[in-house]
């Protein structure tokens, strides 16, 4: 009995973190694969017939949920479970609880793939999961928060490093944002539903993916470069800036619908104010990297992190720009916005998560990566693939914008988008191939006997 217990709810140090990271990689393949499949259906709408599960909208639902709830969130929690104990110089409060959360989360993802591909959805963008799955996610999130809080409470260092601020902040407010945003058991009037929907839709990004991602970056950069952080004060300014200005921006997604003007004004103003924390955070990163950019040539995980920071800069300059009324008037409803969303989730946060996995897995398992060349290949496939995707979507978005702005019926310009759909599908194939190589590399490193001696340090406990 205890054997079975130890197998499924292992108490081994670092097992929860490792299991979360590996599950994240598994779901990323299914999620990104669905994205590519859907993008091919944009180019050839008759690719599949009469299979509801492979219909484009169903694939899209699953794609969005798999990459956000599956790949990014699970990966983030895995990274947090690795980084928080290291920063507190102790062990995770309960590995068993962590593993239990991991199983619950995987069960949630199985439920998600079964329901979403069949169209069992709540019909709310980014909150598609049904009531049962919503509750599971909320409970799992609270469990994670509890585990991390208890770890921090039992810490052996006095000072909280800035990453911990980010992790604790996110783990405090994200469960609340999630519970408010899902609107599982409430039926609000249409536009109020939309206001809360976009409060959630934007804050799953702003108070979860951004804040944990930035926290991971603060953790990784000083370690990669062996240099102290440029400024602790600046990092605190960035943290409070994000906490203040990110949350009210949601309404900029429905700027031209008949919601109250004062709400729109708050959203637009805080969107522009977001430049403050973003530039603070990035100044801190870039000053920490000062004189050390060359290290990215050899240190591949560092290269992923650097790329992530640059894409983060790009996304966050784009965001306030397109949240202003005049630009939104022109660009709303188009693929430009889809390109922007991919820049944030794929360009910035997927890259930093990949970097964290490349950093953490050897330290969790004591095994070096099977092949540096495969990491290099992964980097270039994902980097070039992302750039192609971003620019094809952006150009397609500008064509659509022109069409809508000039009032030309859709069917007269939709044909001109075919080249961009095609290029987008190609870029998707590149990204998924990169991700598959990543997973293969991890599999070879972990589950085949290594010919080389194990050189990776186990978890070092110094800040």
């Amino acid at each position, binding site marked *: 009995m205890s054997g079975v217990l130890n197998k499924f709810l292992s108490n081994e140090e670092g097992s929860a973190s490792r299991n979360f990271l590996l599950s994240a990689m598994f779901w990323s393949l299914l999620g990104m694969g669905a994205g590519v499949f859907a993008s091919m*259906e944009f180019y050839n*709408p*008759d690719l599949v*017939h009469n299979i*509801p599960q492979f*219909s*484009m*909208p*169903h694939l*899209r*639902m699953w794609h969005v949920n798999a990459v956000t709830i599956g790949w990014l969130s699970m990966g983030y929690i895995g990274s947090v479970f690795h980084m928080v104990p290291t920063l507190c110089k102790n062990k995770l409060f309960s590995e068993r609880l962590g593993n239990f959360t991991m199983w619950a989360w995987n069960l949630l993802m199985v439920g998600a793939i079964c329901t979403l591909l069949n*169209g069992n*959805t709540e*019909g709310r*963008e980014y909150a598609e999961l049904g009531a049962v799955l919503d509750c599971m996610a909320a409970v799992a999130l609270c469990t994670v928060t509890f585990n991390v809080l208890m770890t921090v409470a039992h810490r052996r260092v006095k000072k909280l490093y800035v990453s911990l*601020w980010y992790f*604790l*902040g996110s783990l*405090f407010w994200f469960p*609340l944002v999630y519970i*408010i945003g899902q*609107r599982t058991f409430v039926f609000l*009037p*249409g*536009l*109020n*539903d*939309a*206001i*809360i*929907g976009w*409060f959630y839709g934007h804050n799953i990004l702003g108070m979860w993916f951004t804040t944990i991602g930035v926290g991971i970056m603060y953790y990784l950069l000083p370690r990669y470069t062996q240099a102290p952080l440029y400024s602790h004060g600046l990092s605190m300014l960035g943290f409070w800036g994000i*906490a*203040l200005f990110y949350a*009210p921006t*949601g309404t900029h997604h*429905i700027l*031209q*619908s*008949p*919601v*109250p003007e004062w*709400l729109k004004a*708050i*959203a637009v103003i805080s969107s522009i104010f977001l430049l403050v924390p973003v530039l603070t955070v990035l100044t801190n990163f870039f000053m920490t990297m000062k004189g050390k950019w060359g290290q990215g040539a050899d240190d591949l995980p560092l290269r992923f992190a650097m790329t992530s920071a640059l894409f983060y800069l790009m996304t966050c300059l784009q965001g306030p720009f397109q949240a202003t009324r005049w630009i939104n*008037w022109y660009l709303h*409803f*188009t*693929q430009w916005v*889809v390109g922007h969303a991919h820049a944030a989730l794929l360009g910035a946060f997927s890259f930093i998560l990949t970097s964290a996995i490349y950093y953490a897995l050897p330290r969790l398992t004591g095994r070096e990566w099977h092949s540096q060349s495969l990491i290099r290949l992964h980097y270039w496939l994902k980097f070039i693939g992302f750039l192609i995707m971003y620019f094809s979507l952006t150009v397609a978005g500008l064509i*659509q914008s022109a069409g809508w*702005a000039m*009032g030309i019926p*859709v*069917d*007269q*310009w*939709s*044909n001109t988008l075919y080249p961009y*759909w095609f290029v987008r599908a190609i870029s998707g194939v590149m990204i998924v191939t990169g991700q598959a190589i990543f997973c293969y590399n991890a599999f070879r490193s972990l589950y085949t006997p290594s010919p080389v001696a194990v050189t990776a340090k186990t978890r070092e406990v110094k800040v």
Partner: protein
Amino acid sequence: MNGYGYRLGAIGIISTFFIIIFSTVLMPMVLFRPDPTVTRNDYDAEGKIGDPRRGRRIYIREGCFYCHTQFTRLQDREYGPLVKAGDYVYETPHQLGTARTGPDLTNEGGKFPSEWQKAHLIQPRAVKPGSIMPSFSYLSDRDMNDLVCYLQTLGNKRTVHKYVEAPDEYQVTTPVGFALHERKHVDTNSDAAANAGRGIFTQNCAACHGLEALGNGPNSISLTKKPANFTRPFYKQYSDEMWFYRVSEGVVGTRMPRFNLILTEEERWYVVAYLKTLPKDAEVTVDKLDQLDKVEQIRLPKLSKQQYEPHSGGDH
């Protein structure tokens, strides 16, 4: 820093968060409560072919809102009247949408006949060449009817029911259109006129539309947007004016030319007479949604690729 600093920090995080929740979540709930307007959707289609409320659930289930929006903006043209805040009071979950890969559906009801909507759901490219909408041929008859019924209720309080109709210049109600009808001496319902029209059709239209008007003429091989198949049932709902308008002014965005530059008015009326005699796929057609339950269930022919896209290689 002392231990007190962290407590201050924690209080800071919590209070910041709740201030924001208060201002952007709770305040709109309290302050923003628009009254329901008369133009809101009441899901009341005259005489049901289906249940519009269930249709809305199908709309959500099939994820239509990922590509179709349901709110018109000031700068949108051809999507009907602007929406008001009160139009959405009973719309939950909201279907405002975020991206327009396809057209806006705010005022979709009555824009097209129900048969057209059904054919479009089964194979969008059969009725809208070049469309990239996925085929929803897997929907059951009941689902399809409900969904179409829901689509027909959209904006039904905002716009007058109007199927595809020629512009005002072609209607008798305007001076220009009146003059056009004054000049017309062709009886478009007569066999003689249709016979005359057949020759003109063979010479001018068959190259693309095919001798049997199935949209499979030799030129259609090279066209990205395939020519129309005139035997589709909803073409039986075209009025004479609509046919005349299409033949005269062509279809913008396709290779369909403006035949008012090529044919005389008289010749165009002859073509119209011929087009009206073309065999139909299904005999039963109705003009209004509310008559649909009085006729037999309309069954669209079994979908074969050959029929809709004759030159795509076929699947048999």
